């Protein structure tokens, strides 16, 4: 895992060495209808709407964030459209959330 701050390549599977028993993982896909949207800019906003992180969705539309317990908003921006989804995480584990764009 990178020690820089750049967003890593997004994959559906959790990278080796990341402990889902400790990390609060928010992950899912950016979709237009049923089709995955690649190359969308996916932004994590905290409960006050403040920017917390941003990644680019993978060719399969995947994205993933490592957050903390709480309520989060995920916003996707793509040249074909934009969309928003919300997710609540009570604790560690994988919290699935898809973001539709239109």
């Amino acid at each position, binding site marked *: 895992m990178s020690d820089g701050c750049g*967003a890593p390549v997004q994959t559906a599977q959790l990278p080796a060495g990341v402990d889902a028993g400790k990390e609060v993982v928010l992950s899912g896909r950016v979709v237009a209808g049923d089709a995955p949207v690649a190359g969308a800019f996916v932004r994590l906003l*905290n409960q006050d709407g403040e920017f917390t992180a941003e990644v680019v969705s993978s060719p399969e539309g995947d994205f993933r964030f490592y957050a903390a317990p709480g309520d989060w908003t995920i916003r996707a*921006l793509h040249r074909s459209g934009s969309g928003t989804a919300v997710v609540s995480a009570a604790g560690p584990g994988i919290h699935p959330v898809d973001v539709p764009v239109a």
Partner: protein
Amino acid sequence: MSRENVLVSAEWAEQNLDTDGVVFVEVDEDTSAYDTGHIPGAVKLDWRTDLQDPVVRDFIDRAGFDKLLSGKGIGNNETVVLYGGNNNWFAAYAYWYFKLYGHSDVKLLDGGRKKWELDSRPLTSEATQRLATSYTAKEQDRSLRAFRDEIIAAIGTKNLVDVRSPDEFSGKLLAPAHLPQEQAQRAGHVPTAINVPWSKAANEDGTFKTDDDLRALYAAEGIDESRPTIAYCRIGERSSHTWFVLHELLGQRDVKNYDGSWTEYGSLVGVPIETGRTGKGN
């Protein structure tokens, strides 16, 4: 300094892809994006392998920078236009780094890769060939770079601007949320630091807000323009983005970037740390 001297729009860039004396440089931590598609004619710089010393935590030295830029085919008199992913974080870092080594004409592409892609402008995977040059850097301009002892001395005396997200500032998160949160350093912020996240200076498409908006933003957060300012984040690239805003766009004179940032400060033994959202201005 003014906006026209340091920032170019995507329109300007597309019209000047073949202009002599202008070289486009994509800077990223992960250069796989460049390899799949980059602005035609752009060369790439890898934030880690090109700009960091492979052993010591520091930059490559002056001779190393000469060699790097010569090999990339960048001349001393060329206009370097930097852009990248992650809302131009690493491009802003490279901008600051080029200034540190005294390159005279550097500009950022407003919005970076993101705006370029959202606009559906051309990208190519074709390799860029440039003839080698014989680049000569200047000595590092230390008036732009802050070190750890200066940070401790600045507590309560200078503007310390923590540009990380509010949850990193308060100590709830230890890194941007696209990274795992198990980290070696302690969580929190430097006492008296003001939290002005870098993202407040940018629009959703990655372009910078207007000078008037930016001036109003920092004034409202309590940055005292009569005092020197030091910006920091986690590793110094998001704070380069804010350094660019304060020093290059708004023309504040004494602004430094602390590239050691939280990964250094939060690992020091015995230094004061505050947690919560109680920093000045909050």
